[in-house]
Structure formats: structure tokens, C-alpha cells
């Protein structure tokens, strides 16, 4: 599903967070959103997911305008994975993943064969078969994050929003989550992800949008966006960018002595 954001404005407590922001995401594209803390990444994602209503501007999911859709219908097309989700009470892994079918069901409707299939597939893709009957709260951070990815997949979305999905995970789980998402993208899922780790963004995304002070400064292929100059301008830190053609990706590391004077 292609996504278009048109002149989006959003203020929080009187402070402009997003300023007349335009953005297009192609169908089946993995877009990374990078930018300093407070640049509006999370707010942008929440506006794209219909969780926050823009003060001004429109979001199009495919051909449909988001604010004209009931929130339950939005949730059949858009799912989200947050940095951290806490579960009240001892719901099992399966119970949490089954909640992903909520937007597809009427108040008293029982799970159909289609619902079961979606849940089964979400469990398969995230490799959670052996965890199904365990309470989510007993899992490690990395395992939990896979459960919430499975919950999002059980929604069978066309757009997946990720908000720093791997920020608190070790490298093993970071890679697993990113590779799962990339595989899903190959199957046609559109992905927009706020990512702190510039190297992770460079390695897995098709395009990167550099967000600063509520507007997109640059958007394009990681190689063209994550340049030393762009990073210095927005993050205020000097970096070296190494373009390793052989690995097909770029590597960014900070220069020593950034904060000596």
C-alpha cells in the first residue's frame, strides 16, 4: 500500500512538532526515518497510524484518506510495533497475538478459519511456536518484542510502523527483527520505521528520510542521505562515513574528539 502525507501539521502542548510535512512511501518499500531526539519521528508515525489526529494536513493510505476512516478500519491496514509494550496481567503469548485480530472482528464474532490462519502465520514468521503458552511477562525483552511483532502481523496490515523497534535489544535480536521485517517487505508489506541506529537504517532500509525540527530535510537512498555533512548539520556531531561497496552498505562512526572544545 502506498502512503502519502500531505502538508501535515501537529502541535503538542502548543509546541509545533511537525511543520507542513510532506512524505510519500511506495508500496513494498522499507523507509527509515532518522533524526535527533525530539525531531518528531514518533509523532509522525502516530499520525500515520491514526492514533493522533493531525491539526492540519492529510494522510492517504492507498487511495483512502485516513481521518475519514473509522479507527478500527485503519487498524486492519496499519499495524505498529513500539519500542516497548508492557502487558498488564498474565496474558499468554498466544492470547496477546490473537488480540491482533481485534480490528477484523465484530463485538461478538468468533475467530474464523481465516483468523486462525493469520495468527498461525504470525507465530510461524516470528518463530514463537514454543512460547505460545507462556505468559508474556516472563519472556526476555527480545522475545517480548517478537511477540509484539507477531501481534502486529496478526493484524495482516498493509503498512507496518516501527518506532525504535530494536532500541533496547541486543545485537542478535536486533538483527532477527530487522531481517524478519525485511523478508515481509519482500512479500509486499510497506514499512516505515523510526530508527536511532544509523548503521542499522543504512543496512536494512530502501530509503531514508532525515527528519529535523518537524520537517524532512533530505530523503533518498541511505548512501545519499547519511552523508557526513547531513549528519553534522542535523545531529551536530562529526562522523566518518565509510562506503564499503563490497558489503553493499555504508558504515558510520563518530570521529574522536567531538566534544573536546
Amino acid at each position: 500500500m502506498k502512503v502519502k502525507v500531505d502538508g501535515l501539521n501537529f502541535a503538542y502542548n502548543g509546541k509545533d512538532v511537525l511543520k507542513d510535512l510532506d512524505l510519500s512511501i511506495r508500496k513494498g518499500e522499507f523507509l527509515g526515518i532518522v533524526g535527533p531526539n525530539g525531531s518528531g519521528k514518533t509523532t509522525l508515525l502516530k499520525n500515520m497510524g491514526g492514533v493522533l489526529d493531525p491539526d492540519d494536513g492529510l494522510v492517504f493510505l492507498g487511495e483512502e484518506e485516513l481521518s475519514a476512516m473509522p479507527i478500527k478500519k485503519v487498524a486492519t491496514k496499519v499495524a505498529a510495533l513500539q519500542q516497548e509494550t508492557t502487558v498488564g496481567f498474565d496474558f499468554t503469548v498466544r492470547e496477546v497475538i490473537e488480540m491482533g485480530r481485534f480490528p477484523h472482528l465484530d463485538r461478538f464474532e468468533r475467530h474464523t478459519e481465516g483468523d486462525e490462519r493469520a495468527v498461525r502465520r504470525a507465530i510461524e514468521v516470528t518463530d514463537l511456536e514454543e512460547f505460545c503458552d507462556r505468559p508474556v511477562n516472563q519472556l526476555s525483552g527480545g522475545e517480548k518484542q517478537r511477540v509484539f511483532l507477531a501481534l502486529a502481523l496478526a493484524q495482516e496490515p498493509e503498512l507496518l510502523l516501527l518506532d525504535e523497534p530494536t532500541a533496547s535489544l541486543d545485537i542478535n535480536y536486533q538483527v532477527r527483527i530487522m531481517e524478519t521485517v525485511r523478508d515481509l517487505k519482500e512479500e509486499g508489506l510497506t514499512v516505515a520505521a523510526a530508527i536511532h541506529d544509523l548503521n542499522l537504517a543504512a543496512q536494512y532500509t530502501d530509503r531514508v528520510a532525515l527528519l529535523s525540527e518537524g520537517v524532512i530535510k533530505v530523503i533518498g537512498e541511505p548512501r545519499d542521505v547519511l552523508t557526513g555533512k547531513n549528519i553534522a548539520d542535523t545531529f551536530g556531531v562529526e562522523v566518518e562515513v565509510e562506503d564499503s561497496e563490497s558489503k553493499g552498505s555504508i558504515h558510520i562512526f563518530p570521529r574522536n574528539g567531538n566534544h573536546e572544545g
Partner: protein
Amino acid sequence: MNRARPKVTFLVLFVLLAFALVAGVAIGPVSIPFRKSLLILTDKLPWLEISGLPSNFQAIVFQLRLPRVLTGLLVGSSLAISGTVMQGIFRNPLATPYILGVASGGSAGAATAVVFGFQSSYALPIGALIGAVTAVTLVYRISWSGGSSSSYTLILAGVALSSLFSAITTALIFVAGPYQQHRVLFWMMGGLWRSNWTLFKIILPIVTVGAGVICAWSRDLNALALGESAAAHLGVKPDTVKKTLLGIATAITAVSVSAAGSIGFVGLVIPHILRMIVGPDHRVLLPAAALGGGVFLVYTDVMAKTIMQPVEMPVGVITAFFGAPFFIYLLRKRIAGGKMR
């Protein structure tokens, strides 16, 4: 996870319920043999006709004990459902049906009715209802701004208003005469002795409709266990769910409080026990808690009637007597398990 199957749990609860019905009408100052009680109850079924039942027993069963048992069921159910909703919405295991000020508002209302000399037997319930609704309305108005409210604000406003209304009640008791003091205190202890068919017929539709609507929203309540933001991404409107369910839960609590005073611990403990047995899925938990709460209150009421015969204890004493130790046990277990949240 070791969880009881819902079917087994409901079967057990229904058996306990049937036994509670019979025990509730059989046990009291005048003992009616269980077999006779059962016959008197089944005699009312349209396709059965049983002859030779003593008419004085029939009168005790139908005019005194049955309305009391049924009112107890409704009150216990609504407290347990309401407690489940509060714990679910606030994601806090310590939430009770009274967290938004229903009980202290009800007490203040009842005390006002007594102290200002209203003598009718309905003065107390009506005063309590007005007090409960006033307190909760104030809590809502204080904490709701721009269509949304944080759970913390709601709980804190509830705590603040509760102490304000408790102060009013204390002041009223302080200025009241001994007879009035007795009436207010008696009411505050909570009990089912005022039950009659009229009262039952008033609260029956409110509690059943309220409980039905709450059960219809169980999936929304489940989603809310993931936090408001994650729930919103599932297509739940957190503010709508909170407003609707807190409103209904408070309404059925207010009705229960006006019928039976502020009976403690049913709304806190029953949801916990059943969550341990059937798990946290509200589609199963809510009806199970409704049954469990109702049955629990009927049994404790039977104990309240018999434990100190011929004097009747307030049922609130019995529920707390069993509820408090259990609650302390839960608390200790949570601390020991490092799961205090």
C-alpha cells in the same frame, strides 16, 4: 500456564450457585430443612406442582429470604464485575469498585439523609445513590479535560474526593444524635437486611443491562491491557472504552452501594481469585467474576446471619474477615515473587 478450562469453572460456579440458592433460603433464625427449601423453590416452576408444603415456610422463603438471596447475588456480581473493570482499565491489581469515590460518596449521602431526618425506608438508599453519583461526577469533572484523562489523574481525584466525603460523613455522625449515629454506622457496615422484592426489581434491570454491556466490551478491555497506545493501534479508542466502562461500572456499583451499603473486599478479591483460576481474558473472566462475586456474597451473608445467632453480623465484616487475610497473602506472594507492580 495452569488454567482451569472455562467450561469446568462455569460448571463449578453454577453448582455453587444452585447450592447457594437453597442454602440461602434454608438457613436463618428459623431453620427450614434443605429438602423442603428445594421443594418450595421448585414448586414455583410452572410445570411442577407439589402439595403439602407448610405455608409459614413458604412465606419465609418468598417474602424474606429469596429476595435477600437474589439481591445478594446482584450486589456481589456487580461489585466483582466492577472491580474487574477497574483493575483492567487502570492496569492495577489494587483497584476496587470504590476507587472513584462511590462508597464514600454513598456514605455521605446516606448520612445526610439520616441526619436531616428523612424517615422513609427508602431515604437511605436514595440518599446513598445521590451521594455516590455526586462524588463520581465530581471526580470525572475534575479529571476529564479535552475528552481524555490519564488514569493517574482519575485515581488521585478519586482519592481526594473520597477523603473529602469521608470528612463530611464523620462530621455528620459527630453532630447527629445517638439513634441517628447508630443508623448511619449500621448502614456503612454494609448488609443485605433491607432487601425486599421492590428493591430487587429496581436494581435487577440496571445490574443486568450494565453487566451485559461490560461483557460485550471484554475484547476492548483485553486490548487495553497492552497500554493505551498499543490498544489504539489495534483500533480501540482508549478514551471511549474508559468513559463507557468506568461509567457503567460506577453506575452498577452505586446501585449496589445504595442497596447494601459499602461491602468491602468482594470487588477486590473475587476478580483476583478468578483471574488466577481462568486467566486474564476478560471474555471469560468477567462472567466468571460475576458468578463468583454473587455466590461469595450469598454464602458470606448466610454466615453473617448464623455466626452470632440471634444477632446478625454486618456482611461487610464477614467479607473483610475472609478477604483481608487473602489479600495480605496475595501481597506477600507478589513481594516474594518480585512482581510488585
